């Protein structure tokens, strides 16, 4: 009996579990100590949670792009963070032009709509071009090849946009109607945060409905299962993959606009960190699963906002907010140790993987 257990459990497993237990201990101990110290009241925790939800909403829109592309092609599109950057980075010039001629202030709703449409279009077109030029020729190549290509495409797009628009920061003009707060019960919430959370939720529902309820979604699921059989059933595989990239790009473009509502500055490198976080969120929720990506993003956003104060403040660590990225990725490691397929991810067989 003991020998069987010894054969099953390797040293690597033991090390991984020790790391998991250590992380779990820090989380529980830090939380208890912080609550005992009572440095923050309930209002602060609510504010932090709402901030986390808004941040999670942006991550969710990027993560949806990662997850639907992975769902169909079983490929991580690492250039997706640049698709996210391209939309708002291009649309900033329209916003500035509208602001200069006064249209931004006189017609803020139409201006925001125009900027959003431009950002979504740019991101979608770029995602489709990327698929057509970089990924389609590698459709039957080993899985590592498109992955490396995606990393290359990511750098290519980053430095292309730096070449086009420069390496400086560009600021979006302020929108007067999104200033201030709305009160829910007795809790004031920033209007931008409400807009971001609601938009992310709507986009998730739209994408989920497309995948589950429409003919195109059925074709996407068929292509995801088996491209050759789907092709024999009369599905235009190239077209479906192209539409998947367009949808992912649109989601990233919208995510970019929501991101600039929270942080109204754009630059060529702005996609890197949110892209990485969104990828983490997609893995956390179970990559390939649309509600999973949303859930993972929300959890990551909340952990990033609440985690530093909750886990580290009570242990006397100074300026814990600087460690927010470390917390987000450590929690990812912890969840992947417990559940490698992600929160809502299916356990796939070796052959399918």
């Amino acid at each position, binding site marked *: 009996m003991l020998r069987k257990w010894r054969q099953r459990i390797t040293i690597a497993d033991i090390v991984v579990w020790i790391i998991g237990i250590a992380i779990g201990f820090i989380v529980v101990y830090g939380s208890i100590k912080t609550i005992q110290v009572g440095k923050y009241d309930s209002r602060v925790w609510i504010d932090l949670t709402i901030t986390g939800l808004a941040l999670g909403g942006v991550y969710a829109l990027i993560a949806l792009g990662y997850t639907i592309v992975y769902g169909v092609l079983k490929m991580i599109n690492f250039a997706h963070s640049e698709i996210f950057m391209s939309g708002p980075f291009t649309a900033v*010039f329209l916003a500035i*032009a509208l602001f200069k001629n006064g249209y931004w202030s006189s017609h803020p709703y139409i201006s925001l709509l125009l900027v959003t449409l431009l950002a979504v279009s740019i991101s979608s077109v770029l995602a489709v071009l990327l698929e057509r030029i970089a990924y389609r020729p590698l459709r039957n190549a080993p899985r590592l090849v498109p992955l490396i290509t995606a990393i290359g495409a990511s750098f290519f797009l980053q430095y*292309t946009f730096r*070449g*086009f*628009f*420069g390496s400086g920061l560009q600021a979006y003009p302020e929108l007067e109607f999104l200033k201030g707060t709305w009160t829910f019960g007795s809790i004031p919430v920033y209007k931008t945060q409400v807009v971001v959370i609601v938009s992310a939720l709507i986009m998730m529902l739209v994408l989920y409905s497309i995948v589950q309820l429409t003919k195109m979604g059925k074709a996407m699921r068929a292509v995801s299962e088996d491209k050759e059989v789907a092709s024999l059933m009369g599905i235009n595989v190239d077209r479906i993959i192209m539409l998947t990239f367009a949808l992912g790009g649109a989601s990233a473009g919208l995510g970019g606009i929501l991101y600039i509502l929270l942080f109204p500055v754009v630059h060529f490198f702005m996609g890197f960190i949110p892209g990485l976080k969104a990828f983490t969120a997609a893995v956390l929720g179970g990559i390939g699963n649309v509600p999973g990506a949303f859930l993972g993003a929300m959890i990551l956003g909340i952990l990033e906002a609440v985690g530093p104060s909750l886990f580290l403040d009570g242990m006397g660590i100074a300026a814990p907010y600087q460690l927010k990225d470390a917390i987000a990725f450590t929690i990812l490691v912890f969840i992947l140790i417990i559940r490698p397929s992600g929160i809502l991810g299916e356990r796939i067989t070796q052959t399918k993987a």
Partner: protein
Amino acid sequence: MKSKLTFIQLLSTGLINGIIVIFLGLVGMIETFNQRNIISGLVSMGSLLLFLPFFMFGYITAKKEPDKTLRTVLFTGFVTGLVAGFTAALLPILGQFVDLRDMFMNASPTLFSILKF
């Protein structure tokens, strides 16, 4: 002298060529490369970079052409080059009417002068 490639194929190849030239210009490569001479006062790296896509796409079109007679190959290359040249020329033409530099930092008069020879 009739190419077996369709007009759309020639047109799209020429367009892609032109777009690549505009891309290289707007990214800033042509202007930066132009500061280095290959033959002093005659050929610079910038002009080489400008002509490279034309040669490359001319070669690709000629290779795609099933009818390999000299006249047809030259004709397809000529049409592709013409379309590409026209597309690339749109940038300096547009630059005369609109200040592209507000958006594209490399859309400078120097770039336009290189494109116009």
